């Protein structure tokens, strides 16, 4: 299947599309344009960003995005070819709210709910500090996928080193909840600053004592209180995490890798590809953004002008441009621009060639999208990206 058809099939049939990739490769724009295309195909679509930098809101021309889907105005969507049946909503993950909602869902009593929400450690865990973003994102995707008023959920993830944390999040939470250490910490003796020695190695006890001394007992009391309060909820979390993982690695979901055209970006994409492979993630294909394409007929030249005809080319062009004093530097500038641009085209092509081979081997698609002359900062801009992305008849499988 050619790349445009493969990509269209995904947008038409899947329930969850996850865009992964390193930073600065147009991942957010890709997520938003896939979502727009979903709406154009008549699906009720939501796009979720995890990026705290508000890029999705900017690209959609929406001032603020909340933790619940904000529907984009029907008239504006209709103007871009979204039929009556389709819709597009956007939301930005509010980690704290998502976590609070979860606690509310699973707390076994009002008292334990209050105890957790008021716990100092919980506040830091659930706040903007690292650690909870990935889990709450997964949770949010799952929550959205449970709704019957949405057909397609497109997810924009944080840059690569975190994208895999995102995938690992439910498993990590499960492992943590099941770990012996948690049981040691949950031992009531812990709250008094002593440890169940038989339950844990002597060395660990010593280290934990030192951590306790360094950090102040209160800090550890907070942790144990947090874990105690959490214990009542852990079964609910555990079940939930299992279902989240099953949903994201199941047939309803597909992962699309966004990459840039540069060598550095390709290197990062290849590294990410390997990690996705070893994690058993079903990667459907790659979109290489912002590729330079040669504007002329024929192959991209190695050198403009041909070195042996440099003087001849300059003289002919300068004469054609009027033969004045200004014509000589103009001819040089025009030839230099073509030479420089050909260099960009060649560099992009070479950089993404290996990626294409690797993806092709696994049956995935590679879609190269030309660089836009301007920025994408509104729905119309997104629509033109989607047009290029889904333009039919391209050869880049």
């Amino acid at each position, binding site marked *: 299947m050619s790349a445009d058809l493969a990509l269209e099939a995904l947008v038409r049939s899947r329930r969850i599309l996850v865009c992964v990739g390193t*930073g*600065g*490769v147009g991942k*957010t724009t890709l997520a938003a344009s896939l979502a727009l295309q979903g709406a154009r195909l008549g699906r009720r679509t939501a796009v979720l960003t995890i990026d705290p*930098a*508000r890029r999705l809101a*900017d690209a959609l021309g929406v001032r603020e995005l909340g933790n619940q889907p904000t529907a984009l105005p029907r008239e504006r969507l209709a103007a871009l070819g979204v039929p009556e049946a389709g819709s597009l909503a956007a939301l930005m993950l509010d980690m704290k709210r998502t976590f609070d909602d979860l606690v509310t869902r699973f707390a076994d009593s009002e008292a334990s709910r209050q105890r957790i929400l008021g716990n100092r450690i919980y506040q*830091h*865990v659930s706040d903007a*500090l*690292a*650690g*909870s973003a990935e889990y709450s994102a997964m949770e949010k995707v799952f929550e959205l996928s449970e709704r019957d008023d949405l057909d397609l959920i497109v997810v924009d993830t*944080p840059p690569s080193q*975190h994208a895999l944390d995102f995938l690992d999040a439910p498993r*990590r939470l499960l492992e*943590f909840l099941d770990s012996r*250490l*948690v049981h040691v910490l949950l031992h009531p003796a812990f709250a008094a600053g002593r440890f169940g020695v038989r339950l844990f*190695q002597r*060395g*660990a006890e*010593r*280290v934990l004592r*030192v*951590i306790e001394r*360094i*950090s*102040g007992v*209160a*800090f550890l009391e907070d942790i144990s209180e947090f874990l105690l309060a959490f214990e009542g909820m852990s079964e609910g979390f555990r079940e939930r995490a299992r279902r989240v993982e099953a949903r994201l690695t199941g047939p309803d979901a597909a992962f699309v890798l966004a990459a840039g055209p540069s*060598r*550095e970006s390709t290197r990062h994409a290849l590294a990410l590809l390997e990690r996705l492979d070893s994690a058993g993630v079903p990667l459907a294909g790659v979109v290489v953004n912002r590729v330079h394409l040669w*504007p*002329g007929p024929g192959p991209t*030249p190695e050198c403009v*002008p*041909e070195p042996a*005809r*440099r003087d001849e*080319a300059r003289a*002919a*062009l300068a004469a*054609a441009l009027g033969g004045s004093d200004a014509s000589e*530097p103009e001819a040089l*500038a*025009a030839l*230099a*621009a*073509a030479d*420089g*641009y*050909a*260099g*960009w085209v060649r*560099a992009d092509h070479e950089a993404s060639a290996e990626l294409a081979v690797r993806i092709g081997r696994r049956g995935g698609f590679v879609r190269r999208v030309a*660089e836009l002359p*301007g*920025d994408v*900062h509104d729905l119309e801009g997104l629509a033109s990206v989607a047009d290029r992305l889904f333009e039919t008849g391209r050869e880049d499988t």
Partner: protein
Amino acid sequence: MPLSPLLDRRLVIVTGKGGTGKTTVAAALGLAAAAAGKRVLLAEVGPDEHVAPLLDPDAPRAGYEGRELRKGFSAMRIDPYDALGEYLGLQIGLAGVVRRVLANRAFRQLMDASPGWRELITLGKIWHLESLRDPSGAPRFDLIVVDAPATGHGLTFLDVPRVVGSAVRAGPLRRHASWVEALIRDPARTLLLPVALAEELPARETAELVTRLRDQVGVALDRVVVNAVTPPPYPPGSEDLAARLARLPRDFEIPGAPPPSVLAACLEHLGARAALNGRWIRAIAESTGLPARVLPRLPLGVRGAADLERLAAPLLEDGS
């Protein structure tokens, strides 16, 4: 030539959105400082190491131990678990015990799930590196350049000591966190160097980052780096060149070169890119209130020390 004040700092933290070329800027700065006779350490923070391979793809990694890559220029990657091991080893004095515990799966799981400590221990290690002195009493490193995490996480990274200070009531951890916070907030020693691209979204994000860093973290800034900028392809006064080329007869042949319409298309593309970049360079300078230092786009990417040297000159330019 007098040294740029950038090189007179003890600590320069390079940050920016992913893909802006943070690592390139950090490496260019580090090499320039070493070339000026400073003893430089470049500390990478993150799961992968990029600096050593940038200078030589086949060279072994610098790791937590660090390695001198060029005369006076060392690099290392701060792994939070290595740093934690070192810290606990210093506190307890039993390296073997600490190693065993850190290798314990359950302990790792507890730590993996705990927020904030990675940032704190990483900054703690940087603080420790800054405080190292050789036998004569001179600093072990004149300049430490930190390649910090990408923007969103970068802010969290620098804000952790303050958060810990408010969460932990007493004890050595609180004290250590306050030392780290004092270093970050000391404008004489520490400078934050944001790296941006001259495009709308990264430009806006940079403005937001700078505002929040000023207000929330209180770290000093004196310039913003705008990377990968395309220069105007036209000679001054010839901005209509592409249009005139496009008007040349269709069958006009330039010996050994593509037809005029193709030259026009290339000029137009580069010209549009340059105009867009120019607009956002001005916007970045205006919204951050900082002078912009503009680095050129290298179409083939950074391919070694020579490219880094080319980038260093505009980076260090002094005055506004």
